[in-house]
């Protein structure tokens, strides 16, 4: 019996060696043929996602689409010397992922999300020649460019729009994890609503997660049942559940008054019920793609904004309100634009923290 086992084992071992042996050759070949036809001016760029993943239909995905668009415009290919992304499955993956990209010599390395601030700070000290961009957080290092957004300005406009179009005078806000960024979304939204009509009630629900659609669906269910007709979500992938709930309700009862306001990217496509109906009222846009393109442009010109923090708001077109589909009425849009002008001119400062919101409401 020993013979038969030995023969099986040796067969497997041989197979293993063959696999490993071939591996070396293939590897060399691949290393030699990296992106030769690429545009010489173009810089290579790669990103590390946070744990939301690259297909979160929101923050990370938007950044990745920005990178992809840039790469395709400039004739780059996915991979070394072109554009690429690495996904982080746990918090422990940030540092090795960033390190892998540094070793692959990308000109610019983008980290999306405040969770990556500490890892970036650590790596930036070790790899002083690499250039990093951190989105949604500030890292004070000479080789790190920080990009922040005034999310409250976009969500303020969303609040104004929602307050103008609500019939039940009840609105909902679904948040992801409690954090500074989501706090800006919430306070801006509430300030916008209060500016139109302080008597409108805003129900708040933090799900504690950016990746749990089931929690988003439950939260939306609760709010719609309690009488809310418009829900604004700032919760990444969790928000997909808010859309699911709204679409289900609209499918069951075409006369139901349910709307969702999307976040980060234009989430119009998520609200599709059928060819004639869409329940996405609007989306609070956060133009991460624009921000990344700005940094790329500066870097190409030799002015990489290392050590600086760029804060993008309505005035810089870094945030905004989507108008796809025409679910916002003409009057609403006109009023929204009036408020927008006030913010851009500096006549109005939108509160970005709970404390600022308090003093804003007292005025």
């Amino acid at each position, binding site marked *: *019996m*020993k013979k*038969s*086992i030995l023969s099986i*084992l040796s067969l*497997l*071992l041989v*197979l*293993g060696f063959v*696999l*490993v042996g*071939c*591996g*070396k050759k*293939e*590897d060399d070949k*691949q290393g030699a043929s990296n992106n030769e036809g690429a545009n010489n001016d173009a810089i290579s760029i790669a990103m590390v996602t946070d*744990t*939301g*993943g*690259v297909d979160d239909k929101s923050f990370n995905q938007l950044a990745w689409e920005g990178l992809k668009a840039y790469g395709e415009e400039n004739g780059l290919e*996915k*991979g070394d010397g072109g554009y690429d992304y*690495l*996904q982080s*499955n*746990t*918090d*422990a*993956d940030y*540092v*090795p*992922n960033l*390190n*892998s990209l540094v070793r*692959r010599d990308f000109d610019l390395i983008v980290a999306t999300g*405040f*969770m990556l*601030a*500490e890892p970036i700070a650590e790596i930036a000290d*070790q790899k002083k020649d690499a250039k990093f961009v951190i989105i949604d957080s500030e890292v004070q290092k000479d080789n790190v460019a920080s990009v922040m957004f005034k999310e409250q300005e976009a969500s303020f406009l969303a609040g104004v729009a929602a307050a103008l179009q609500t019939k039940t005078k009840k609105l909902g806000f679904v948040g*992801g*994890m*409690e*954090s*500074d960024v989501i706090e800006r979304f919430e306070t801006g939204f509430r300030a916008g609503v209060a500016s139109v009509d302080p008597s409108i009630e805003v129900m708040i629900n933090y799900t*504690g*997660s*950016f*990746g*749990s659609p089931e929690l988003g669906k439950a939260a939306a269910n609760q709010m719609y049942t309690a009488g809310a007709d418009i829900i604004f979500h700032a919760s990444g992938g969790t928000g997909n559940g808010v859309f699911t709930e709204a679409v289900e309700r609209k499918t069951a009862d075409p006369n139901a008054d349910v709307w969702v306001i999307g976040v980060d990217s234009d989430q119009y496509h998520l609200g599709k019920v059928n060819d004639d109906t869409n329940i996405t009222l609007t989306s609070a846009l956060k133009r991460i793609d624009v921000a990344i393109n700005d940094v790329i442009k500066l870097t190409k010109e030799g002015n990489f904004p290392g050590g600086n923090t760029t804060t993008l708001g309505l005035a810089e077109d870094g945030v905004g309100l989507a108008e796809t589909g025409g679910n916002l009425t003409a009057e609403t849009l006109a009023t929204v634009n009036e408020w927008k002008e006030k913010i851009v001119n500096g006549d109005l400062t939108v509160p970005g923290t709970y404390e600022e919101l308090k003093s804003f409401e007292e005025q």
Partner: protein
Amino acid sequence: MSKSLRNVLIPILAVILGLIVGAIIMLISGYSPILGYTALWNGIFGDLYTIGETIRQITPYLLAGLAVAFAFKTGLFNIGVEGQLIVGWFAAAYVGFSFELPMYLHIPLAILAAGLAGGLWAFVPGILKARLGVNEVVVTIMMNYIALHITNALIRAIAGKDTSERIHETASLRNTFFEEITDYSRLHNGIFLALIAVVVIWFILEKTTLGFELKAVGFNQDASKYAGMNVKKNIVISMVISGFLAGLAGATEALGTFEYVSTKGGMTGIGFDGIAVAILGANNPLGVIFGATLFGALKYGSLNMPNEAGIPEEMVSIIIAIIIFFVACGFIFQLFLDKLSKKKEVK
């Protein structure tokens, strides 16, 4: 066939078969298994940096696996390692950044705080099980969520933002020698802590009366009671030690890998993987070394598959799961080998 030969042969066969099935799946979906496995290999052993990071990844798995295995010896299923790890992480980091002490006091104090926090978190399900017979599986699962959200709230309350300040250097487990030889990998002294824990737990289980009693309770509670052992006390002790180990796993994250604690959107996964590690290691402290090494190496090495071979993340998860699946199914090979040997004997 001798038993020891078989014990070595079965895991090897299982890993190889897992790799082959993984290769077939890559082929079917149009990716090169050769490139994929080269990337996996390079991700684990490629250079000193990846080796350092691989060992870094193995460290918390060792302690988490040990925690699960220890409770299991007493017949307890500690699903709460995850939560115990999270409170341990927080406790170690808190001691790390809020006290200023000399290193020889600071590190032990931070580690002890983590262990005690984890132990306390496991004490609750332990005492409920012992006194009221409440199923520890349900309680520990729920305690995970409590741990996650309480620590998130505490971090935001204390730090005012999503990430705490960094721990003082006097509390750090990092090791400049390791950093130098491994090109700044985050390999830290926690690996020694984990290995010491393995030896200590092995010693407790195999060489002490306490260990004998714990195992006896695991085998048969009624018999143990009849033999004059205090079953309730042993259940609580087992849970607390298990939680202490899970807390230590949190300490290695707080004081070594991260050097800070940040709010989390979900579980870390280390505690749950610890269950698989313990099962792979047949709930034996020394077996846990095997389980943690396999798990840690695959988990860390697989990060390199999208990086070097362009294989999508989802595909990588499937392949890694298949390899682990085959290893866990080791008993199938056992049956297969038994059948083979029987046939021969009949002839």
